């Protein structure tokens, strides 16, 4: 019993220490954000690496998720003679929930893990130390541009996911199942509110982008400088990001929509 309690305490202290280090790290990265503008070419290169290179997986996933939504939505709606409402169902599901959440999960797997591995490897091979000894601040040169790139890319990728998803739903609903094309889009327009639906999705994707990139960059920075350490940090990025995204999604949904 005592051992269990002391183990619990040790684990709690460990996570508190990690949270403390992560907060200090975030504070220093945010202080270094002027480098994002001053070193804009570096930031652009990171946006390409983190954002543009994630586009394919985001678009393909968005397409399939939209197609499945179109199919599942149609099967349910047709029973109530409301198949024409398919556009609204697909759009709302994507814009409010699936767009930000699935994009954030994919983003953590694709770009987050790559960021962690890259920074972790830079630490292991003493590149970060070498920069410090060359009087180059890694917070400005390495962390700030990557953090900003992730933060900026995530909402854009989520928007892309939703847009492609809507087209996926259209292909299945209109192209294969015979829903009227005009109804698909007019229903979508009628039920989707800019503030309540679109903006809530945008806010979620901004929050997820911030959190996932913070976790990814910090895990790389905090990784034990061994191959096993990098492997563990990369896994942690994906696992912690996924849990954080799903947990935050619940909280944000409650705050934005619910009388919880």
């Amino acid at each position, binding site marked *: 019993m005592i051992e269990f309690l002391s183990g619990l305490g040790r684990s709690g202290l460990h996570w508190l220490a990690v949270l403390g280090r992560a907060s200090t790290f975030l504070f220093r990265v945010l202080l270094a954000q002027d480098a994002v503008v001053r070193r804009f070419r570096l930031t652009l290169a990171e946006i390409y690496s983190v954002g543009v290179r994630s586009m394919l997986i985001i678009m393909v996933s968005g397409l399939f998720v939209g197609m499945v939504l179109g199919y599942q939505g149609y099967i349910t709606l047709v029973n109530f003679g409301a198949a024409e409402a398919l556009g609204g169902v697909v759009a709302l599901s994507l814009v409010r929930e699936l767009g930000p959440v699935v994009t954030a999960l994919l983003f953590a797997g694709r770009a987050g893990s790559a960021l962690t591995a890259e920074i972790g490897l830079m630490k292991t091979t003493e590149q970060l130390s070498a920069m410090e000894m*060359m009087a180059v601040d890694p917070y400005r040169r390495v962390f700030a541009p990557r953090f900003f790139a992730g933060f900026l890319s995530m909402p854009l990728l989520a928007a892309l996911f939703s847009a492609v998803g809507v087209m996926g739903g259209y292909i299945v609903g209109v192209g294969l199942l015979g829903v009227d094309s005009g109804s698909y889009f007019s229903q979508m327009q009628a039920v989707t509110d800019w503030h309540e639906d679109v903006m809530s999705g945008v806010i979620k994707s901004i929050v997820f982008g911030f959190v996932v990139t913070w976790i990814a960059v910090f895990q790389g920075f905090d990784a034990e400088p061994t191959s096993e350490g990098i492997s563990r940090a990369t896994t942690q990025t994906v696992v912690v990001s996924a849990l954080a995204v799903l947990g935050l999604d619940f909280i944000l949904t409650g705050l934005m929509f619910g009388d919880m």
Partner: protein
Amino acid sequence: MSKDPVSATPHVVVEDLVFRRGRKLIFDGLSLTVPRGRVTTVMGPSGTGKTTLLRLIGGQLRPDSGRIWVDGEEVARLSNRRLYALRKRMGMLFQTGALLTDMNVFENVAFPLREHTRLPEELIRNLVLMKLEAVGLRGAADLSPAQLSGGMARRVALARAIALDPDMILYDEPFAGLDPITMGQIVTLIQRTNKTLGLTSVLVTHDVVEAMAISDQVVLIAEGRVMDSGTAEEVRAGASEWSQQFLGGHPDGPVPFHYPGSSYRDDLLNEAGRDRD
């Protein structure tokens, strides 16, 4: 013009340095002086904190107590801005080279110049080629770090370390894992760099022969303190029992062959020993 780079004031002074890593005491009142314009080698067994000492001198770590002065400035008390200004005057050669892997050899050497100067591209190109020529790797300018051998990576790192014409270079295990030819090249480069540029050089290594051959001053450290120091001849002549074991490479002596533990006989025969298996 013929100003002697060797001045009376030491370049680095370490005074009563105490440093812990977790519960382990790495330095316990270590004091040493690095004369300006000379090659000083800090030697000691693996795990004695030689690299840690370089990181403390470079301000990447802070001592628990004691003081370190570099060029008259107390490193631990410097603001970030002044610490970075000090670091521009010191180069560091990492054991692995620590080249930036997303850049080729040319860009690696150009990196500190691009970061800290606003020189025109043509001048940067000429400076980088001159530094690469000095280490014999001008022809490798377009290679990526992954295409370099360990020795070549260290030579590129040396070219990068001298890119900003520093006053002092810290070498972390410059001879580790090199073949004899490459080791000879690195030894020559360290000597030549020291003489032609009038630099202060601080090496940490456990390669006794090479280090003794090129050092003006040798400092032997173990158990968190200085065991012996002086010129190579002085250290050899007046070496303590510990230093004799280290310099001679004897497997047993003050540093025992066996890691401390319970009695061998007891471990084989007693119940606790059996239970553990």
